[in-house]
């Protein structure tokens, strides 16, 4: 699988980011907020860690992150301190409850939610420095298709879109897929359907989206972008409870259906993306 070309927008001037050496970089994004993107990132990281992988979750939702909330972390040092030169990068990479590493943006990052060339360079430097030390870097991006999101996604070789079966979430996921396909020339993207009502929902949704993409979205290659169904996470009260307790689902309710689904996702990612 070849890494996707970096986008021409938002960054016609930046040097091709490509995939830095080392870790496989996977962006986790969604068209719409509140679909469980950060929940998926954190629990997937924990599941991958249990498979012996060195995992870093990078809070790429500059300024509007809630990875700290999901993981109940109050780090003294964040990406903001690294960007402002107050701290070394190593101090900002901390260990999360699931045994993986996280790099949090910090609330001071609000000023960086406007993507300037300096922020881009600094962000690239951080990833390039960290990539050799990990097997997987999960970029927990912001929702929507802001230039910060497009930029961080452009650094990833694989993109996972998280959506729920609601019409609004699907419409926004479709819009995001369309932009990523046409702008970043992505040949394929992967879909995780969260809060699936029943088995088979995710596959049905994927094929429904694929049909619309076939009809309306053509890439430069002339072929439609391929949407690959990575897996479903069933609607499960255990998720809500874990989120309210600010605990990883894999730790709080390891036997729950959603937890098992996350473990399956991790298996599939390890088998298809990391081997």
């Amino acid at each position, binding site marked *: 699988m070849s890494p996707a070309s970096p986008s021409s*927008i*938002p960054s*016609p*001037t930046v040097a091709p980011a490509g995939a830095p050496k080392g870790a496989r970089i996977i962006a986790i994004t969604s068209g719409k907020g509140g679909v469980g993107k950060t929940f998926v990132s954190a629990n997937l990281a924990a599941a991958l860690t249990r498979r012996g992988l060195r995992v870093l979750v990078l809070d790429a939702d500059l300024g509007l992150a809630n990875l700290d909330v999901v993981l109940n972390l109050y780090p003294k040092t964040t990406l903001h301190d690294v960007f402002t030169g107050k701290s070394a990068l190593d101090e900002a990479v901390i260990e999360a409850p699931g045994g993986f590493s996280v790099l949090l943006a910090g609330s001071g990052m609000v000023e960086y*939610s*406007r*993507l*300037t*060339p300096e922020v881009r360079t600094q962000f690239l430097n951080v990833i390039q420095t960290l990539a050799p030390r990990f097997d997987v870097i999960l970029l927990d991006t912001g929702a*929507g*298709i*802001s*230039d910060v999101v497009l930029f961080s996604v452009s650094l990833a070789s694989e993109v996972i879109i998280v959506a729920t*079966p*609601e*019409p609004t979430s*699907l*419409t926004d996921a*479709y*819009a*995001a897929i*369309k*932009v990523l396909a*046409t*702008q970043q020339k992505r040949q394929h993207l992967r879909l995780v359907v969260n809060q699936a*009502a*029943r088995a088979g*929902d995710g596959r*049905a*949704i994927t*094929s*429904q*989206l694929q*049909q*619309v993409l076939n*009809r*309306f979205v053509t890439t430069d290659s002339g072929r439609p972008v391929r949407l690959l169904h990575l897996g479903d996470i069933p609607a499960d009260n255990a998720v809500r409870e874990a989120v309210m307790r600010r605990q990883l689902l894999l730790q709080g309710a390891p036997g729950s259906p959603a937890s098992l689904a996350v473990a399956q996702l991790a298996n599939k990612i390890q088998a298809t993306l990391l081997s």
Partner: protein
Amino acid sequence: MASTTPPLPVDLRDLRLETACALAGQAGSAIPPPGMAPAPFLQGLIDRLCDLSLKDPLTGLANRRHFQAVLDAEIDRVARSGEAALLLMLDIDHFKQVNDTHGHVAGDRVLQSVARTLAQCVRPMDTLARYGGEEFAIIMPACQAAFGKTVAERIRRAVAEAPVQIAPGTWLEVSISIGGAYAMQWIRSSPVLWTDRADHQLYLAKAAGRNRVCIEPQPDSTVSAEEKGMLFEPLYTPSDWGALGAMNHSGNAP
């Protein structure tokens, strides 16, 4: 607290207004008549000074400062409203040759004439500014992607079709190159990035031979009614909203 305090009386004779009045007068606007009450007099003077600080003296267009302020505001507006907005950067082709061959007075005439032509091409809601040197910029709010190229092309043609009289009996043909980029909808970008993108297109227009328009293809993040119709066709009908979806869209199946 402040609203209950009575306004302080101002005696115009206590103020040193000569420089301000001279500046306003220089700019060609009439100074408020001296017999006026202090408040309207000062308001008039302040208005003229504001005008002066926002306009380019040579062409009378918005200056760089004004342009930046409008650009900032437009970015916020687009991010909030999701409306389309187009930024055009325009540059007079081979302007240095005009200056070198015909002198700076002729150069100024060209700038003024092009500015007048451009001013006739834009809508009242657009902001036309002299960006610097022989470069102009136009911020066009509510400009749909489908029309941007047509509008820019019309502007380019208007300039190409209006020769400039630089001396009695001497006319000069002038052309401009135009680069354009849309603000990203629902997205907060930055003025620097947006200008960079339009500038890059201007560079492409220049490199492709000048007197032409290049507009960045817009990332299409809008989902049309037709696409939505197909997204929610009853191919997929999960238990929770399937019945409703099927009802609403059963007539749309191709």
